[in-house]
């Protein structure tokens, strides 16, 4: 019986197969590693909401201040999604028959809650406090991005510990005059951050217990 002889072209393959065997795991690991980073998973997270509320329309085009709805942001840890009653302040007259607003009207009529889906979700062991940041004059935009351009809200920043710490270590670039906290697309003047930091005594701690308890 004649011996089987590998054809000559397999010699070329042999050279490449080494690369494949060595390279594939490296490639796979790198791919998975990137795939599980917060940047890859979280940025751009854009869940569906029961009501297609457009921040681009309300905050952008109409120019409502963030605090009209998120009214507790200056005094509480939670910025608070507004109760249906807040929506009905306008929508009892504006677009009062819109089908899209049905869940809100229903909630208001039946005293039931609208079930919104959380977009900016921190782990349960992280204690973030809105009032601490807003009163220290960090703009909404710094963490939430250009909300005024989002028709459907998505997560714009990684919200990772590294990202938080970067600002806690040097908050100056993110501070602005307190009256501009809710302004979108605001460009602080040169030196504005330092002034505000000095005036407001902003000195963010970087202890574990600052956020974890």
């Amino acid at each position, binding site marked *: 019986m004649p011996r089987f002889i590998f054809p000559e072209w397999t010699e070329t393959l042999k050279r490449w197969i080494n690369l494949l065997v060595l390279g594939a795991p490296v490639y796979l690991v790198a791919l*998975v590693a990137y*795939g*599980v980073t917060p940047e890859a*998973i*979280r940025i751009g*997270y854009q*869940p569906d909401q029961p009501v297609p509320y457009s921040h681009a329309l309300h905050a952008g085009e109409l120019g409502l201040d963030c605090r009209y709805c998120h009214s*507790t942001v*200056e*005094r*509480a*840890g*939670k910025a*608070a*999604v*507004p*109760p*249906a*009653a807040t929506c009905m302040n306008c929508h009892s007259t504006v677009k009062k028959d819109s089908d899209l607003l049905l869940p809100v009207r229903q*909630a*208001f009529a*039946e*005293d*039931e*809650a*609208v*079930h*919104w*889906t*959380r977009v900016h*979700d921190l*782990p*349960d*062991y992280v*204690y973030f*406090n809105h*009032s*601490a940041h807003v*009163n*220290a*004059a960090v703009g909404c935009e710094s963490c939430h991005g250009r909300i005024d351009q989002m028709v459907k809200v998505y997560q714009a920043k990684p919200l990772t510990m590294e990202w938080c710490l970067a600002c806690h270590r040097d908050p100056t670039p993110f501070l602005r005059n*307190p009256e501009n906290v809710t302004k979108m697309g605001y460009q602080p003047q040169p030196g504005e951050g330092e002034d505000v930091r000095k005036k*407001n*005594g902003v*000195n963010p*701690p970087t*202890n*574990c*217990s*600052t956020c*974890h*308890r």
Partner: protein
Amino acid sequence: MSQDEELHATDAHRDEHDAERDDADHDDEHGEHGEHDAAPPLADLPPTPVHGYWKSLRELEGKAAFQVGRSGHEFPAGADQPARDPLSRRNFFHLMGASMALAGVGACRRYEKEEIVPLARRPEDQVPGMTQQYATAYELGGVGHALLATSFEGRPIKLDGNPEHPFASGGVVPGTERRAGCSAFVQAAILHLYDPDRAQNPTADHGTGSSMDAFRAALPQLRAGLAQTAILGEASSSPTLRALRTRLLGQGVRWFEYEPLSWDNERAGTRLAFDRPLRPIARLDRAETIVALDCDLFLEHPAAMKYSRDFARSRRQNGSLGIGKMNRLWSIESVFTNTGAMADHRLALRAELALPLAIALDARLSGGTAPAAEFLRELKVERFLRFLVDELKANHGKAVVIAGRRQPPEVHALVARINQAIGAPGATLDYVEDPDGDRPSHLRAITELTRAMAAGQVGTLIMLGGNPVYDAPADLDFAAALGKVKTSVHLHEYRTETSLASSWHVPRAHFLEAWGDVRTWDGTIALAQPLIAPLYGGLSAIELLSLLLGEEKGGEDLVRGVHKELGFEASWKQNVHDGFVAGTELAAATAATPVAFQVPPLTSGQQAGSLRTNGDLEVVFVQSSFTYDGRFANNAWLWETPDFMTKVTWDNYALVGASTALGLGLDNDTLIKVKIGDGEHAREVELPCYTIPGQAKGSIGLVLGGGRTAAGRVGGNEHRRVGWDTYKVRTTTGWDVASKATVTATGTPYTLANIQEHWDIRTGIGGRPEIARDATHVNAKGLDERLPRLIVETRQSELNADKHWRAEEPEEFFNDLGNAGNTDRPGEGGYSLFKEKDYQGHRWGMAIDLSTCTGCNACSVACQAENNIPVVGRNEVMNNREMSWIRIDRYFSGSIEEPQVVHQPIACQHCEQAPCEQVCPVGATTHSDEGLNDMAYNRCIGTRYCANNCPYKVRRFNFLDWNKEWRDARNKVRRLLFNPEVTVRMRGVMEKCTFCVQRIQNAKIRAKAQIRSGQRPGSVTAILPDGEIETACQQACPTEAIVFGDLADKDSRVARLHEDRRSYALLPETYTKPRNRFLARVRNPNPEFAAALQGGHE
């Protein structure tokens, strides 16, 4: 002679009791030798003081059981094994294989999708994520307590004392802060609200499921039979309930009230003494000599919280907190209580001997004849009484005597006369009119009711709370009598023994679910408002009564209606807000002068000496620190909080004195039989023995409240019981104190889940390997080296005489300026291998005053509620896995017969040079800029190096997933109790006291936000006002023994206390620089008595 030899010597001594007595045994001169030839009296232990401090008798005896391997170190052998089903190596790989295969998959998704569910209309003042506080109240044993409930988005999560309430706050001294402590029971009461075992539906016909509609359908029938109806209520001070009662009495209903533990004897006693029942309320803030006659002032007394506070305030030495001269506490008691532990002089005496003692005291003070009782001639008693009488005479108008619940009315009457003789009324003692003067005693009420039931005279029995089938006197046989009642209705939160024996059981609303009103011990009306709608649609007692009366009124209407009648309508809103109606305290009794009364002749036991023979022993029934009288049996927090003195968890037991145990051959951790009475009336109970030093000779304490058969999954059911039912030997004749008891050893081993030797910080000392490595037991050398530093004690006289006395010598090793080597801070002395930190802003610190800590456990349970600390159960406690962040070490010193006690609460000391931080491989525990020893749970990988390196043994490891069962659907309600500001820890992470960092952070954030937005003046870098941040333990502490604050603020209370000469740090030689400092225990013995005692022992 070592302790071991001493015990054996005493042992031998007993065997030949006829032989000559040792000289040291001078106390027994008047013993009962030769009187009982057949049964020799029990031996006495020599009063020789034992060297230093000790935690248990077992330790003193040096028994093999007290070994490092079992308990001395924080991780005993096998502590890291899973609970029941140990993982074999094979299983381990099996499981690991799966986790390896799935590793990373878990990370490839976002967190669980979360919803935001805003209210459709947000109530005014409600801010999502912020807590709100409401005043409310609850009642225990007919005594009201004013509370402050913290609610988070509509669910109550924490209870504390109401600091506004005039009686609860103890704000009696002008200018002192109004703060209210509370008891461990109050702290734990909230757990019942979310208990998944609470009854959720009525049952009909002895436990068959039914519905509220069915019960309502049966109401007309109940209404029709009102004339043949008896109502058995728990004791209640509620004005609303009283108004309804009056209306029901008009319809022919008979009304009975029953409590297994009550202060009826005091009423009866004052009735004897004054011809009408009065309520004595002592003013401990004014008293310089306080005598507790078989009375636990600080835990059991209805005014315990106020007494604790007043006592502590006048006790404190620091000028900034104290209000004058230090008082002196004398305690005469049979069981070792915390009052005895706080006492400057304590006399252990059988409870039945309090009567002859009171007669003798009365005789000495008002010149009568002393009774002929043998024990009064014993040197110990005679001397105690002599010095006590002298002091009472010298302190006329500045002394007060208080008798306890167990003592018969005659003792209370005698105490009233004694108080008159020493000028107490008007000065240190107020008498107020009893609000319910005609009420028969609880014991009489239950006796009459049971007889009527047995005779078939009760057609319908309605029970408002209570659990008489379990806790009524055993000789009445309430269960059998209940069987003769045609219709019985039981209103209770749980489906108890009584519910199962009744034809109807109706779920009762928790006090946080219902409107109500109560009166605190001084009579001030406190209002209870609901914080949450009834989770299971239960009714409150007043709502049920209202239904019986044929009206459908809600709780609010009922309470408000009655308050309108009482004339409080105008201030209703204010009263609900404040939680009390100002100015409603009971009227002071006028012209309270004692009249002549008969004192019964002494029994043979009361005439005898302090040594007793078996068969003539006394049994006293003791309130449980776990379940009160059994009602809190389904409360896991309370079961797992170690008893104040015994440090046992999850059990009840017989308390036996050391000499009694020795004489009877009883051993710790074995079962014994206690028989009361003889012949056919004898009743017997078998339960574990706990040998406690300092218990009166010949007196056995039986702890009540265990052995429930229908409490719930925690407290016992038909399959599994917790503790032992001691009610079955409690009869109408031996209700509080029973005589003629016989105790026999069974020899059956039974291990109590005792934590007293867990987390022992006296072992494992760095740099002293000969101590650390001694695996047999704590050796004398180790104790010598170590103990004087853990507990520092001094006397008032010493403090006064030596103005330079300091608890901590300035030339301590780490303060030694000559100790060159501190390169970080030259000239400051001491040095560490690690870099010293500089602190700029806040420097949080704590001070704990050992002079006023009564060891009441309120801090420990408050911490549990605040910080979501799990319970682990009895088996895991025995594995050293208890999770409580605060442990209260209880040390004995002195002789076994007459020990002294110091309580020392220990939580994380927040060392500036923390040893735990240096060994964490992942940086999960680090130091904050404010000096907190932070713990990041999400970083912890569970190496436990930190706990190993902690010299104070305060770190607790989650060996298992303790919160697992709360994820079950049926237990979901329990999750509502979690404090949302604190992470619920998972398995495999370390945890410990954080100084309530969530409260610190939130207070700081709030202050800064207010300052920056201009709502509050000041600067964000300034210090916060002292007292703005209170830790949970501090808030709960009834004696203000725990003070937390900012050391950077030189005027803060904590900073001043750290500078106090009584302040000292634990284990200074380890150079950990703890932020928590203790204040030395100051005792204030009578100088002449102390001198005499000194002479007697030497």
